[in-house]
């Protein structure tokens, strides 16, 4: 076994009289201080509103941003209003009103598809539940800002207008 048991819990005499350890700590912090004092550029801070992570480093493809609804070639939603996402949703934030489709090949489509983004926990279960790849969370939008709570009820037209947020 490569396990070493230290019976003094890492507290030898030198550590117990504090002073060498205090000096060691001061050296660590002052090293950081001088390093950053002479070269502030290397600090990994991102100036948020002016600089953004997705621009600087790019988002991971697994990133779950705001939802979007994908479209068929004719511009209609791929969603067939099967209610699987609404059923899978743990926070019950998806509201769907199905209606009959004019296209004979398609049985039904959502007349209303509404997501309450304030209730959404961004777990991604709706995306996993969808059999038609109709709902995705790859918009890359993470900063949702509105002036009222009512505006956070995102409707079908907004969700469908959003494009894929980042390149592969």
């Amino acid at each position, binding site marked *: 076994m490569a396990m070493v048991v230290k019976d003094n819990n890492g507290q030898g005499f030198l550590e117990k009289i504090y*002073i060498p350890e*205090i000096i060691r*700590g*001061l050296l*660590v*912090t*002052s090293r*950081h*201080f001088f390093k*950053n*004092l002479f070269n*502030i550029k290397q*600090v*990994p*801070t991102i*100036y948020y509103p002016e600089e953004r992570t997705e621009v600087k480093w790019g988002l991971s493809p697994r990133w779950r941003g705001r939802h979007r609804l994908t479209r068929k070639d004719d511009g209609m939603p791929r969603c067939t209003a099967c209610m699987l996402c609404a059923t899978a949703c743990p926070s019950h934030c998806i509201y769907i009103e199905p209606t009959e489709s004019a296209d004979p090949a398609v049985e039904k489509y959502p007349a209303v598809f509404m997501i309450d983004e304030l209730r959404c926990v961004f777990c991604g279960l709706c995306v996993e539940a969808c059999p038609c790849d109709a709902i995705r969370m790859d918009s890359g939008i993470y900063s949702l800002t509105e002036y009222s709570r009512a505006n956070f009820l995102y409707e079908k037209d907004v969700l469908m207008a959003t494009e894929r947020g980042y390149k592969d």
Partner: protein
Amino acid sequence: MILDALIILIKLALVLGMIMNLAGLLTWAERKQSALMQDRIGPNRANIFGFTFYGLLHPIADGIKLITKEDFIPARANKAIHSLAPAVAMFPALVTYAVIPFGDILRVGGREINLQVADLSVGIIFIFSIASLAIYGVMLGGWSSHNNYSLLGGLRAAAQMISYEIAMGLSIVGLLMIYGTVELDDLVRQQGYLIGGWLPQWGIVVQPAAFFLFLCAAIAENKRTPFDLPEGESEIIGYFLEYSGMRFGMFFLAEFADIVVASALLTTLFFGGWQIPFLMADGFHLPGGFSLALPHLLVVVLQVAAFGLKVVFFCWFLLLVRWTLPRFRYDQLMRLGWKYLFPLTLANIFITGLIVLALA
């Protein structure tokens, strides 16, 4: 007569201006330095026409904010004492500075100007007697707020300050025994002498143990991390819980003024005050026989600059300590003060006394 008064006023303005400006600057330095130490950037948003001056406008913005904020006094608080406490906390820090010499005697036009606001014969004793008044600001602030938590904070602070004042006062007794004086300008002048012709007789050289004990006690006296239990900004509630606006700001500034005073004291007692090694009244005299004559005015300016630099260095060092070490628990604080620092200072006095006797 009028000229004498004028000179004293100028010295007063100089000293007060230095201490207040340095205290204000320290509020910026603390934020900027902590940021750099933690690989952050620190304050950089306040600006005038887009110029941020490395965040130097933040203290001004803070001042404006604090002054224009609502000045709240709790309904059942003792109004008079509640209003008085911040001033009482600020007062000792400013008065202590009066006896600290910031330069040698300046000779201008046949007149000898002592670069020290008040040349008191009791010097260091005056400093400790005034510094012990700082407890009142804290105690009154905690007690008059009519709030259990701020009262507890005030008690914590008072117990801590009294405990560490003993270690602080006793730690420099050895120093006074060696120099044989309590006058600060005399003390600094003696630190200019050389031991064996090359080593400046600074306090740190003759009393290294006292330096560490005094440093420790001074940080505890200032109520700074690792001894910041009285206020404990991040978790515990302190004595200024019921203060708002500029009254709170005064408690805050008093803390920074205390740092400046502690730095000035450390400089004066242990790092030769305004002394520059090998710089005599007429110029540099290096041990190798090399000497460089300098005009009197330049020497005095150099010495005042050296004092300022040393004070700024110690301010930096105290901030470094504050952002490096974690906080003590209260029993650990008391144990360190009474069981370690107090006996160590006594031992230091005893050993110093033996050495002084042996050398005499």
